[in-house]
C-alpha cells in the first residue's frame, strides 16, 4: 500500500526561475530565498519519495481559454518543459508515472472530481521555477502534475481544493504498490501583478496563513476568494493550492522547516510538513 510521507508548500514565480538561470543564488538579494530551500532539499533527499504529486497552476502555457480546465491531471510517462514566451529552460523533461496517474484518475473520478485527463501536458514555472531548488537533476522521482485553475474565475473554492487533497490521500492509500509519496502545493503568497495595487504584499497575512496551514487548516477553507484577494492581492488566490497539499496530510503534522522572504513582488513562502503516521526512520 502506498502512503503519503509529507508535503511541501512553496511559492512559485518566474523571477525565481530567472534568478536561478542567471546564477543569482548567492546574490545578496536572492541568497535568503535560495538558502531557505536548503533544509527542505536535504529533507527531500533523505526522505527519498518514490513519487511526487505536484499541485500547481498553468499560466496559459499549456492551456488557453478556448478550453481551460478547472482541474487537469497529467497521466503521461513524460511531461515536457513549456516555452512561456522566452524560450524553454534548459532542464530535462519530467518523468511521469502513467500507472499511478491512471489509478489516481480512477479514484478521483469515483470520488466525484472531474479532472481533464492529459496524456500530453507541458510544464511551466508553476512547477519548474521551484523544482531545481527542491532537488537536483536528474530529477529524483517521477512527478504527477495536477493543474488547478486559479486564473480565470470562477476558480474552485478553498474548501474544494482541500477536499482534493483528501481525495488524493485516499487514492494513494488505495494503491497496491508500496510507494512513498510526497505532495507539493505551489503558488505565490501575497502578490498582485496589475493595476495601482501592483506589488502589494502582506507579510502579516502570509505568516498567519502559514500558521493556520500547519495547525488549523480548516480555518483557511472557509475563506472566500475575495477574502484571499483582499488580504493578499488578486493573484495570491493561488494560495488555495497549498490547501490541497495540506488536505493530503495527517491532521497533525511535524514541521520540518518554514521560511518566508518577501523582497520584491511576491511573498516567497516555504513550509515542509511530515505526516505523523509515518514511522519510517528515513523521514
Amino acid at each position, binding site marked *: 500500500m502506498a502512503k503519503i510521507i509529507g508535503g511541501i508548500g512553496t511559492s512559485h514565480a518566474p523571477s525565481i526561475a530567472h534568478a536561478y538561470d542567471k546564477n543569482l543564488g548567492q546574490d545578496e538579494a536572492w541568497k535568503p530565498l535560495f538558502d531557505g530551500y536548503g533544509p527542505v532539499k536535504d529533507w527531500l533527499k533523505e526522505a527519498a519519495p518514490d513519487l511526487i504529486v505536484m499541485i500547481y497552476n498553468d499560466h496559459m502555457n499549456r492551456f488557453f*481559454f478556448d478550453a481551460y480546465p478547472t482541474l487537469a491531471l497529467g497521466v503521461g510517462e513524460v511531461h515536457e518543459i513549456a516555452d512561456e514566451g522566452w524560450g524553454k529552460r534548459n532542464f530535462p523533461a519530467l518523468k511521469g508515472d502513467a500507472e499511478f496517474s491512471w489509478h489516481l484518475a480512477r479514484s478521483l473520478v469515483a470520488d466525484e472530481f472531474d479532472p481533464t485527463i492529459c496524456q500530453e501536458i507541458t510544464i511551466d514555472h508553476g512547477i519548474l521555477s521551484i523544482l531545481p531548488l527542491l532537488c537536483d537533476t536528474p530529477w529524483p522521482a517521477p512527478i504527477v502534475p495536477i493543474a488547478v485553475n486559479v486564473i480565470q474565475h470562477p476558480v474552485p473554492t478553498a474548501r474544494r481544493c482541500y477536499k482534493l487533497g483528501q481525495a488524493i490521500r485516499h487514492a494513494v492509500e488505495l494503491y497496491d504498490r508500496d510507494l512513498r509519496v510526497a505532495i507539493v502545493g505551489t503558488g505565490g503568497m501575497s502578490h498582485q501583478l*496589475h493595476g495601482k495595487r501592483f506589488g502589494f504584499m502582506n507579510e502579516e497575512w502570509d505568516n498567519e496563513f502559514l500558521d493556520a496551514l500547519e495547525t488549523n487548516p480548516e480555518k483557511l477553507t472557509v475563506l472566500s476568494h475575495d477574502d484571499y484577494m483582499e488580504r493578499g492581492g488578486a493573484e495570491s488566490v493561488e494560495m488555495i493550492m497549498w490547501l490541497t497539499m495540506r488536505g493530503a496530510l495527517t491532521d497533525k503534522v511535524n514541521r520540518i522547516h518554514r521560511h518566508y522572504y518577501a523582497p520584491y513582488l511576491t511573498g516567497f513562502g516555504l513550509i515542509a510538513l511530515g505526516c505523523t503516521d509515518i514511522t519510517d526512520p528515513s523521514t
Partner: protein
Amino acid sequence: MSRYLVESGGNRNLPDTFVFTGERSRKGYRLNKFAMSLTNPDNRDAFRANEGAYMDRHHLSEAEKAMVTARDWDALIRYGGNVYIMVKVAGTLGVTLLQMGAQMRGQSLEEFMATRPGAAARPRKE
C-alpha cells in the same frame, strides 16, 4: 446571498483590482489569444519583425492594436488582457514585469523599486 456569489470572486470591488472574471476573459479573448501565440518562437520573431502585420493576422481591432503599440499595460489589463499572458507580449518586446508594474502604478522603475523591501539589498548595476 447565494454561496456562488460569495465564492465566484470579484464581487467585493477590491480597490485598483481587476479580477480576471469570465466577463473579462470573454472580452479579452481575441487579445489574449494573440498574446498566447507568442509561446512559439517563430511567432515571436514574426511579431517583432512586423507588429502590425502580425496583429492583423490575429484580427485584433484598431483599439486593441493601439494599446499594444503604445505598450499601455494598464489599458490592456483593464480591457481584458490577462497579466500572465500580457507578460508574453512584454517579454517579446524586451519589457520586464517590473517595468510593466511601475508603469501601471504611474511610477518610474526607480521610484517603484525604492518601495520594495528587497530593493536596498539588490545590486543596482543591471
